């Protein structure tokens, strides 16, 4: 293997913490991952040495902040292989990126139109479309999944039609880890002229993301799931689309000229960035992505695949184990149930032993209902996790199960 886990771990201060007197084992990376010193220092460095409002001042500090801010945008553009940094809109995160498009599509969607999503969507990629449909008298259609947790491509084919005005779906499922065949699906949609929005929240730190190769119209992700800060995210959009969409919020920064009678909007990307932006957040987001680049996404995928296989094998040996999501194409997200034990009970006992997992419906209630289960326990890994931690987790899980039996 090409990576040095010990060295990587030493970059993350929180990993040496004790929880309930035990060494922290952090397996809740699907919710948010931890931050390396590089990112933490970047935020403190910004406020210590550079803080100033961007795009406004003639003074040196403002110029420095603006340059650093725009360099971050360039870094993000290169990271996902966008054509231009004009296609990178800074947002609060995936949720806001999706809401921005849902809002701007109000002019495009009409009565009788359809928006297509899938059963495996996070509430963030479901509720905005549902509400848009309510508002406009459009129809929300939902592509089903197979028992393994793959999208049902036969259904998908039959649901794509001229009525569909947008196809929105997750690159990777936050509950099952399924990696959807994004490029193939996008191509199918394009045959009928349907634009595609991809929720990349779970993909950005765990798979190669190349928006030019995927050819999607929109791609959304959050910095905090990619070793970056909370409250920061990205909406990628193809220029011709972004140019034609109405602004999402109005105010400073997003205008070019204003009189009391009318306003001319600023060009991309500023048209969609009203108000003072999160400059420290943008810098730190780029720093998180740089952290990924320095290790290499290929190395990360290899390491996390190893953890996924190692943990899946160990879990499968446990009596009554049911892994929810058994796609052949998945990232290091494992949702499971054991017998009829409630996920909450397992999560509570694991926490007592220092293991942080997520329990519940993972903000994907319709998917959980689809399986007719009360929720799952979810262990999700990141670059700093190790086989030793999985061994400890399996031991802790067995202890919990013995107590709950």
């Amino acid at each position: 293997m090409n990576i040095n886990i010990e060295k990587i771990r030493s970059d993350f201060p929180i990993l040496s913490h004790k929880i309930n007197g035990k060494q922290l084992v952090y397996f809740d990376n699907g919710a948010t991952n931890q931050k390396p010193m590089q990112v933490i220092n970047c935020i403190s460095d910004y406020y210590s040495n550079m803080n100033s409002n961007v795009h406004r001042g003639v003074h040196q500090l403002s110029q420095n902040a603006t340059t650093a801010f725009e360099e971050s945008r360039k870094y993000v553009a290169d990271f996902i292989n966008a054509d231009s940094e004009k296609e990178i809109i800074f947002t609060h995160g995936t949720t806001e990126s999706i809401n921005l498009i849902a809002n701007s599509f109000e002019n495009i969607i009409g009565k009788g139109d359809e928006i297509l999503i899938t059963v495996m969507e996070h509430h963030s990629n479901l509720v905005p479309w549902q509400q848009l449909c309510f508002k406009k008298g459009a129809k929300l259609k939902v592509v089903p999944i197979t028992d393994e947790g793959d999208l049902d491509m036969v259904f998908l084919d039959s649901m794509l039609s001229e009525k569909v005005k947008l196809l929105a779906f997750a690159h990777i499922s936050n509950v099952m880890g399924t990696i959807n065949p994004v490029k193939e699906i996008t191509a199918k949609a394009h045959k009928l002229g349907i634009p595609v929005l991809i929720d990349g929240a779970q993909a950005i730190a765990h798979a190669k993301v190349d928006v030019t190769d995927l050819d999607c119209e929109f791609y959304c992700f959050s910095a905090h799931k990619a070793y970056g800060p909370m409250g920061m995210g990205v909406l990628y959009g193809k220029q011709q689309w972004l140019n034609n969409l109405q602004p999402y919020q109005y105010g400073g920064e997003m205008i070019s000229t204003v009189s009391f009678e009318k306003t001319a909007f600023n060009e991309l990307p500023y048209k969609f960035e009203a108000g003072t932006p999160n400059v420290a957040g943008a810098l730190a987001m780029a720093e998180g992505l740089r952290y990924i680049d320095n290790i290499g996404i290929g190395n990360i995928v290899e390491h996390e695949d190893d953890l996924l296989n190692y943990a899946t094998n160990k879990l499968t040996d446990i009596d009554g184990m049911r892994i929810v999501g058994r796609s052949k194409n998945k990232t290091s997200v494992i949702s499971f149930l054991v017998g009829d034990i409630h996920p909450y009970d397992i999560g509570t006992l694991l926490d007592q032993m220092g293991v942080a997992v997520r329990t519940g419906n993972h903000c994907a209630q319709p998917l959980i209902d689809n399986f007719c289960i009360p929720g799952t326990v979810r262990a999700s890994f990141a670059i700093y996790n190790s086989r030793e931690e999985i061994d400890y987790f399996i031991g802790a899980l067995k202890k919990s199960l013995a107590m709950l039996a």
Partner: protein
Amino acid sequence: MTIKEKEDALVSEFGMFDEWMDKYSYIIELGKEMPLIDEKHKDPQHLISGCQSRVWLNAEIKDGKIQFTADSDAVITKGIISLLLKVVSNEEPKDIAGANFGFLEKIGLKDHLSPTRANGLVSMVKQIKLYAKAFQLKNMN
């Protein structure tokens, strides 16, 4: 025993455990002894909306004292409810309305009562008190 005395008794029982595991094992055991809610009451009306585990609670008054029954689909939640019910069941409405469940903190379970735990116990306590206040009002009329 008064509510306070029952709380103190639980605190001293839990004081015997050094290990959290023993504490939780005991909580799980107590859950198994809890007076269960009648299946016919396991309906949306008796459901307390917590986030993750479902909890049902019923209360009836007998000779001026409230008898609680409950259930949950998570055994730890059930155990903690059984602690609450041990303390408040068979007490008068006015005493229950004034209880503060301080013993949970003393036995190291206060975390479970924090709103962020998403286990519905905060709503549980609220519901216990609502029942108590409702019966209190009825008595006064």
